């Protein structure tokens, strides 16, 4: 029997026994659904983490000098916490010395941060990120100014009460009004809005546009940090090689300023987006390691189910096999018929699984902040696994069918 014929026959049998076919492919279906959904979400997370998360928070070719890591991933022990809290803070002088000592071309900015209220004409915006920075911040963050301008180096140095705000804050306070030139109160201190930053979207569902940045030396400084202290020095270089040099420079300058002996650990943190991506890579790796296990369990179960269904089918259709043999079907024709049937069954199950997996990924994408990215390879793998499981599961039943004695089979009731 030609192959095409065998598939057509298999599809017809599967269709006439929809219920049974449905049950028999549940295992394969679940396995493949799982494969597609998990791979899509992991891949989506992957691109999200690399393209958006890490770079939005830390920036490309950028490092931050801090008292302790800002982006903490995984469990932090109590001891570590305690040690971190005991560390000296980064002072203005530290930041200046490090910046001055970096031997490669770079951009730099200070950053200090707190949350607070911003008001305008009776409207109150709570929980706003109040960030004290220097003028280099805009360029390091790669922010486009939607309206107005960033504050100037002169304003930064003089610590004038000017502020550049995020889109969401602008909308909340001003609605349709033009924010530029208006006076807001940041923690009750009057500030003049000079610019609005283009919307940054959101990250894991949290808006990135609820902030007000102001010169680090402006009156806000009282609220964001103790005197003459910054949260972070941000340094951005032109390329990765320079970044390495700059980080090494920062490290050695800080160590010598703090008179650390070579045996002592650094009591400050120099972090890049790499650390975060490394950690994500680990999670990713674990997921991808666990995935084959989980998928293969359901596929093995699915295979066993299909094998049993096929054994039943062979028993039920013994007479049909006898008839076919009497009409000239060879062993290999019967073998192929049942193999194709079981493979088709499994592939159909896998196909439904793929569709469901894609749908699940789309639903996750639509309803949560989690992005989904369909990996074409996972679809190929899904189909191949389905077919493979079907063939493996069909082998024994099909060979039993093929070996039936025609005389006995045809008399079978």
């Amino acid at each position, binding site marked *: 029997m*030609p192959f095409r014929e065998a598939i057509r026959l298999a599809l017809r049998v599967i269709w006439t026994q929809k219920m049974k076919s449905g049950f028999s492919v549940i295992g394969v279906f679940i396995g493949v659904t799982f494969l597609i959904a998990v791979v899509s979400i992991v891949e989506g997370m992957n691109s999200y983490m690399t393209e958006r998360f890490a770079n939005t928070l830390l920036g490309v070719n950028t490092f931050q000098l801090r008292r302790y890591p800002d982006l903490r991933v995984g469990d932090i022990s109590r001891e570590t916490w305690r040690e971190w809290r005991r560390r000296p803070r980064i002072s203005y002088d530290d930041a200046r010395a490090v910046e001055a000592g970096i031997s490669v071309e770079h951009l730099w900015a200070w950053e200090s941060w707190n949350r607070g209220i911003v008001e305008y004409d009776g409207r109150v915006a709570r929980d706003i990120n109040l960030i004290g920075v220097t003028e280099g911040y805009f360029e390091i963050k790669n922010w486009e100014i939607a309206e107005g301008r960033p504050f100037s180096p002169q304003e930064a140095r003089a610590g004038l009460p000017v502020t550049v705000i995020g889109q969401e804050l602008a909308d909340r306070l001003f609605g349709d009004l033009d924010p530029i030139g208006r006076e807001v109160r940041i923690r009750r201190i009057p500030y003049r809005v000079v610019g609005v930053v283009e919307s940054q979207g959101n990250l894991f569902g949290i808006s990135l546009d609820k902030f007000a940045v102001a010169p680090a030396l402006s009156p806000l400084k009282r609220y964001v940090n103790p005197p003459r202290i910054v949260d972070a020095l941000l340094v951005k270089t032109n390329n990765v090689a320079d970044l390495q040099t700059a980080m090494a420079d920062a490290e050695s300058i800080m160590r010598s300023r703090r008179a650390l002996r070579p045996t002592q650990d650094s009591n400050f943190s120099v972090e890049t987006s790499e650390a975060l991506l490394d950690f994500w890579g680990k999670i990713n790796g674990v997921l991808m390691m666990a995935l084959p296990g989980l998928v293969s369990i359901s596929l093995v179960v699915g295979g066993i189910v299909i094998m049993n269904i096929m054994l039943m089918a062979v028993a039920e259709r013994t007479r049909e096999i006898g008839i076919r*043999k009497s*009409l*000239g079907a060879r062993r290999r024709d019967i073998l192929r018929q049942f193999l194709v049937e079981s493979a088709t069954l499994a592939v159909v199950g896998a196909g439904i699984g793929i569709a469901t997996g894609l749908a699940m990924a789309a639903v996750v994408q639509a309803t949560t902040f989690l992005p989904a990215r369909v990996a074409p390879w996972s679809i190929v793998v899904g189909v191949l696994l389905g077919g493979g499981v079907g063939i493996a599961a069909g082998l024994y039943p099909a060979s039993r069918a093929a070996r039936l004695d025609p005389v006995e089979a045809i008399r079978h009731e």
Partner: protein
Amino acid sequence: MTAGPLIRVEGLTREYQMGAETVHALRGIDLEIDPNEFVAIMGPSGSGKSTLMNMVGCLDSPTAGEYWLNGVEVSDMGDDELARVRNREIGFVFQTFNLLPRASALHNVELPLIYAGVSGKDRKLRAAKALERVGLGDRMHHRPNELSGGQRQRVAIARGLVNAPSILLADEPTGNLDSTTSEEIMGVFQELHVHGQTIVMVTHEANIAEHAHRAVTLLDGLVHSDTMREAA
């Protein structure tokens, strides 16, 4: 077709092992059937006629003896070769029709052609022709359970004929039919015979056997009598 007998059986023996006991179904049958004969094989149950039928139909292989079909020895063929012989040389008609219940009449008739490797269009055409030949041109897309017993048997005959086999082998073809329908089916057989088809029919009913031109009676696994009827 080579000259000489279509079927030549010599010393055909078939034994079955039933637990410790050996059953001698055929004890050495010698038989020759020429082209265009219409032979009835008769005998009481247990006489070995079904076993002989399975041998002649290449569904089973003999324990000993020779079977030549169309000048080719088939008694020592392997499974796949036998399947090929069944497909090309033999058309079966069974007592219980043995149609595939979920397939249309047309598809049932197509089956031997599928295994012969005939491609789609040609296959449908030939199957339809075979159905028309047995008077079922208007029932092609009916399923067996939508057909009467006689119609089912006609489908089976069409299926048996579709590959233009050397022998049409019928095993109690009227066993499940009432007498009127039986006569009808025998009419079909007569017609086929007139057109040159060789027919071997197993039956235990004397009035059915009368339609054949030659009656071979078996008893205890041996040929008991072999009589030619005067041409009707």
